[in-house]
């Protein structure tokens, strides 16, 4: 797949349901790819502290919920981007081994590795002669 260009549009969540906390909520940009043994999700979450990040797997729904606390000194004088929380959900197929999911947050990037269950691994079938 061709590489994507850098863009700045933060996609705000448009939802009829409101959040209790005031302020914008964004859909983070993600890459999701699959290998033979796992599914990998990478999300851009700038400004998110590890303790404010919640990854939750409920039945087949993986939800990323991140709260961003603003600590910038001074008063704002010029603004091109908004700061807000991140939220996004994905439906994950049940071929994932839910007990082995691992997540890592580093430098504003979240990486979630979802290993496939043994049963879902591709298997080569031996043909007897």
């Amino acid at each position, binding site marked *: *797949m061709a*590489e*994507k*260009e*850098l*863009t*700045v*549009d*933060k996609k*705000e969540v448009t939802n009829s349901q409101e959040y209790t906390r005031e302020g*914008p909520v964004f859909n983070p*940009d*993600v*890459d*999701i*790819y*699959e*290998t*033979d043994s796992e*599914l*990998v999700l*990478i999300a*851009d*979450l*700038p*400004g*998110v*502290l590890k303790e404010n990040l919640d990854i939750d797997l409920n039945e087949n729904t993986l939800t990323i919920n991140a709260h961003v606390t603003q600590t*910038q*000194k*001074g*008063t*704002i*004088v*010029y*603004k*091109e*981007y*908004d*700061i807000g929380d991140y939220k996004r959900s994905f439906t994950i197929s049940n071929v994932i081994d839910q007990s082995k999911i691992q997540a890592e947050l580093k*430098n*504003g*990037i979240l990486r979630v590795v979802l290993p496939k269950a043994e049963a879902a691994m591709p298997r080569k079938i031996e043909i007897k002669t």
Partner: protein
Amino acid sequence: MAYTTIFRPTNRLYQYDLLQNEMNRLFDNFFGTQRRTTGSNVFPSLNAYQDAENLYVTAELPGIDVSDIEINVEGDTLHIKGERKLTNTDKDVRYHRQERGSGQFSRTIHLPFPVNSETVTAEMKLGVLTISLPKADEAKPRKINIKTA
């Protein structure tokens, strides 16, 4: 190259922006929607903050290595240049989604007052870049004493 002037009241463009913002606000209030996006298509988006001593310019640059960013201050001009490289994945992966961008970026902005370019510092934290630009002495606020007769 993207060229932006930040809050310079003498600039006509700035005044046009003000008017446009005001119009947008008026319409948004009327239609009950909130407009938050700036619609600029240059990368990265920048915010600026100031206090009595410093001007802070921030940008969200998740996953960008400090060594891939170059910051230059020249008089009242600030240049930010860099590249976002995505970690290479194996060739035989199948992408379900690819939304994160990569490539080179560069921005130049005009600062509203002279800064002390010797003491500019930059910090990358949680994927957010903060550039602290100490104001030059002549740009700092001064307290004026009032004499009583």
